[in-house]
């Protein structure tokens, strides 16, 4: 009996995944544990291992295809077995059937379902004439072609116009497609590969439509490297942040004497108490999680016409990975000890580096800390990760000088860069938070009691 392999659902918020690589071709033998294909969500990559042995009979999607979760992806069985029943339904997108003909099977092989176009949503743009090919591409890729800049003859939208929209990132997930196409809205996607999800549609339901960006003119003599999905997410998120949020940055330095003393102590004796590897970042997370509780608008999300204040502190920790910036969330930091925070922060960073972090752990932060101090940065403008209201940038450790009792004395200092959303936080409250944070850091060991 042929076994069908489906696209797993990696987390409740995941609607679909992109197949990044096939390791098996139709006709290849498959053993239990063989990696069949790799796939990714917007932020994680996974390998699908075979649970059965046999021969790859049919592959319904190609590399780069966006496959709805729980959809049949391939079939493993004995050569000649009938697999027609497993072929995904006709209105599923981008089904590129590659199949082994089943000579012995009397039943016809799966119909070339990809050739049947899904019924199109009525074109919303009144003048949106579109070629059949461009329409099919738009449907398969979830692109609202009514937003396209038509460059074909007679104002017809042609394939390259839809491709320009895809390049600009205006794609919806399969689930959101029908509702999205024809919506005429320029919606920022937060889903897989920057795709617009049903949630985005709901969020943007009232937002005014915006004109799609004109496609960038192509020039020769350089190499176009397609953006990875993570890069697209970052690009969209950062653009949205900087174009959509009036934000400004405050800088303030603090004396690290107390923290340095504590770290020296831990280094010398920590092991005996089971405490080790406490980083400056861990300490900053710890301190911030305590101070934030006194500043509810800093530990908040700015939503449409409302500010969502969180009862606990969920710190987003910016992690630099090979694949780009990732921000896992350390939840309920205010309830956790420094040691717990340290341990959990390490685990999250490791999972991000490996790329197997659960998508569910990549959202829901109330405040973000971004540390690029190790690279010698003295001051920068962290960009708010919407819909959060603030982000803290951690800079390098510097030796500064000050006059103490008429003498110039060196001391260890660190500059902090806080960016806040002016819609929620004015200058004074932002500065007050930063001031209190600096104070707390300088007296960090006292806070350990809290």
């Amino acid at each position, binding site marked *: 009996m042929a076994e069908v392999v489906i696209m797993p659902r990696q987390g409740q918020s995941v609607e679909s995944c992109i197949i990044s690589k096939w390791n098996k071709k139709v006709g290849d033998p498959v053993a239990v544990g063989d990696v069949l294909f790799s796939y990714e969500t917007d932020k994680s990559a996974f390998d699908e291992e075979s649970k059965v042995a046999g021969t790859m009979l049919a592959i319904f999607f190609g590399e780069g295809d966006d496959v709805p979760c729980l959809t049949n992806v391939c079939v493993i069985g004995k050569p000649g077995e009938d697999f027609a029943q497993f072929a995904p339904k006709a209105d599923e997108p981008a089904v590129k059937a590659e199949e082994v003909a089943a000579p012995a099977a009397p039943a016809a092989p799966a119909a070339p379902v990809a050739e049947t176009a899904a019924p199109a949503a009525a074109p919303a743009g009144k003048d949106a004439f579109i*070629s*059949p*090919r461009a329409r099919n591409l738009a449907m398969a890729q979830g692109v609202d072609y009514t937003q396209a800049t038509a460059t*074909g*003859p*007679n104002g017809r939208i*042609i*394939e390259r116009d839809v491709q320009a929209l895809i390049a600009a990132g205006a794609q919806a997930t399969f689930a959101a497609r029908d509702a999205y196409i024809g919506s005429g809205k320029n919606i920022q996607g937060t889903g897989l590969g920057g795709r617009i999800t049903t949630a985005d549609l709901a969020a943007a339901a009232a937002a005014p439509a915006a004109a799609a960006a004109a496609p960038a003119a*192509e020039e020769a003599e350089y190499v176009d490297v397609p953006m990875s999905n993570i890069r697209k997410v970052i690009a969209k998120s950062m653009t949205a942040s900087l174009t959509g949020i009036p934000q400004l940055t405050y800088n303030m330095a603090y004396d690290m004497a107390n923290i340095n003393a504590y770290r020296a102590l831990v280094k010398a004796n920590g092991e005996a108490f089971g405490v080790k590897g406490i980083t400056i970042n861990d300490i900053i997370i710890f301190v911030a999680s305590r101070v934030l509780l006194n500043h509810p608008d800093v530990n908040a999300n700015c939503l449409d016409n409302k500010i969502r204040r969180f009862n606990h502190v969920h710190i987003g920790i910016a992690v630099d990975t090979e694949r780009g910036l990732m921000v896992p969330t350390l939840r309920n930091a205010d309830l956790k000890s420094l040691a717990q925070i340290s341990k959990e922060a390490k685990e999250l960073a490791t999972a991000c580096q490996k790329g197997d972090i659960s998508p569910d752990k990549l959202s829901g932060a109330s405040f973000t800390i971004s540390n690029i101090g190790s690279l010698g940065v003295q001051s920068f403008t962290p960009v708010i990760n919407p819909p959060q209201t603030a982000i803290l940038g951690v800079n390098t450790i510097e030796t500064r000088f000050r006059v103490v009792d008429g003498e110039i004395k060196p001391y260890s200092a660190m500059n902090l860069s806080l960016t806040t959303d002016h819609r929620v936080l004015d200058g004074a409250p932002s500065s007050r938070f930063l001031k209190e944070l600096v104070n707390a850091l300088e007296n960090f060991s006292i806070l350990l009691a809290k």
Partner: protein
Amino acid sequence: MPKSQYISTEKAFEKGFIHFNDIPVCQYNKTLAEEKKLYKKADFLRIYHDMRTIREFETMLNEVKTKSVYNGVEYHNPGPAHLSIGQEASAVGEAYCLDINDYSFGSHRSHGEIIARGLSSIEKLSDKELYDIMKDFLGGAILNVVEKHMKSDNVKELAKNFFLYGALAEVFARTTGFNKGLGGSMHAFFIPFGLMPNNAIVGGSGPIALGAALYKRVNHKPGIVIANSGDGACGRGPVLESFNFASMDQITKLWGMDGKYSDAGMPILFNIFDNFYGMGGQTRGETMGFDMPARLGAGFNPDGMHAERVNGYDPLAVIDAVSRKKELLLAGKGPALLDVVTYRISGHSPSDSSTYRTPEEIEEWKKANPIEAFKKKLIAGKVASAAEFDALDEMIVNRMTEIMKLSINDEISPRMDMEKHPDAIESIMFSNQKIHSMDTTREAEMLMPKEECPRVKEIANKVRKAFDENGKPVSKMKLYNIRDGLFEPIIDKFYDDPTLIAYGEDNRDWGGAFGVYKKMTEAIPYHRFFNAPISESAIVGSAVGYAMCGGRVIVELMYADFMGCAGDEIFNQMAKWQSMSAGILKMPIVLRVSVGSKYGAQHSQDWTALTAHIPGLKVVFPVTPADAKGLMTSALEGTDPVVFFESQRIYDKGEEFRPDGVPAGTFEIAIGEPDIKREGKDVTILTIGATLYRALEAAKILQEKYNISAEVIDARSIVPFNYEKVIESVKKTGKIIIAGDACERNSVMKDMAATITSLCFDYLDAPPVVVGSRNWITPCFEMEKYFFPQPEWFLDAIHTKIMPLPGYTPTANFTETEQIRRCKLGV
């Protein structure tokens, strides 16, 4: 154009007169007493029986057509019935002299000719021969019916029932007819008796019968060929062309090659049934000036074609004349012309109300009834009694009634079941066989071993690809070109298939107008490779007759434009006889036509659309040396008629696409498979013919200037055509241009565009665009760039109709407004 025949001024301007021999007119005057020395009683009675059977057969058809009832049996027949009541003696007299080695071709008024020939053959064949023929024919389908449903006293009676039933079932379009009902009334024939196709086109049999005679003459086969036609057909060019072709001097003066081969004349008798009318037009006195058809012979050769006019109402006079003509032909003195005076009492067809003749005239001819007259003569001469004739009559009527009942019985004589066998007709449109040699029993007649043929030697030293190792073009003199690609399979076939012949205008010494046959003359005897007269109808028509007799033939029409002169032969004869014979006949003909340029309006047309439109023709148009060789090989191995288009623009082209050049050995390219000549991903260009090279230029510009990668597909074949590669390409690119040098309106390109639209609609990013020639006459060479597709037209089409190119300014106008305007004006 042989050098051996010197034309001197002295001889050319010599004084003298042209003398004609007397043409005998109704000179037969033997008495019955004299004839009794030649004929036994049974012979006389058989002549009567055969005439009477024809009369009854046609009377039955006339009754059915006009009253829907015959002898109490009701039937309605919507098909045609061109009757020859009154002409029976002419038909029976002729058939009396023929045996199964003789081939007769009929007119479209041929029931009498068929029945006469059938009954005469039955008399001449032994019982065993007869039974074997009946058993083998269509798997015994006809024999089964008559054996099961009719009582026959002996094999000859069985054969008569078989023959009359097979003919009538064919007239009524039944699957138990001689051609499964696909030929019908005007096309019933029965090859095992030497009874070849009749023709619904007046005079259509003229050139075809000529081809059959050519087959006998070239392949040394016994017997003669009879081309029957009416006096009306003498107004048709193809008939007159055939008179000339059969009479041409070279057959007796050159084909013998100084005693090496036969120098006999063409073994054909053109037999004209002069019934005074061509439909309603009166030939003598109205539509012709010959007074009597026999006069025509005087115009065609010094023998006057041995023409003679005989009384066709007296079967004995006809037998006397046909016997003498047959003797002449067998002695190598053909061709011959016989003018048989007869009269059609029935109308042209049942709808004919005889507005063009008086009742008195018809009445007089009815009185002259040849059957009654013959009976009276025999009774008076005491050959047989009236009672004997009455008994014969009764038997004939009974047989006819019984056969009619059988033929209209839908269970016994069903029509083709198109519901059960939807491919019944489809499967006989082409024979699709591969036969390397049409006659494996003998060696091909050639003048030297192949290796010694001058052209073969020349090609051996040529470079078989266009560029050398360094990518430099090979010099023209050394380059293996398209001519060579065509030549190689042709010369191979001349050595392998003894039946292969090639002819056309200027084929032999000139080497074909465009040099494809150059230096081939030395290797091939005259009768296999000769210059035809400028008679396109006779050239193609004779090829049809040659092929249907079992030979293989290549004919050439020089310019594709000349197909118009052979319209009927290409479109009605060559294309249709395989299927009209229900697959019994094969048609291994390659018709070479060349698309010109530089020579203006009547010498530069790509007429692929005309040939592609007609069911039954295969059509190819290769434009590389390898494709030319591969497709010519396929065409010559096959058994179907192939119209082989060539282009005069590119005969010099070397092989630019195959890195290893044109294979030296034999290889076939399947007819119907297009070829990707350049791979690409952004736009597809499908070309027909020499336009390929301009499309490739356009592809280069697209790549270099606009970074657009064009995939260029060469159609190579037009019918059949496998769209799979094109569909695959369009799925990839979403955009397609179909281009060729034909005028774009109603072209193959338009047909392909429609097909691609329907097959690839969902993949298309723009409508398929046709880039063809303008719907004008072809202007002079210097202005051709305004007429034929140019490389920039491809960019214009892409820019205007598919995807605008940044910063591009089109030269040719592909806008919709312009398209509408041109359609409105028909230009």
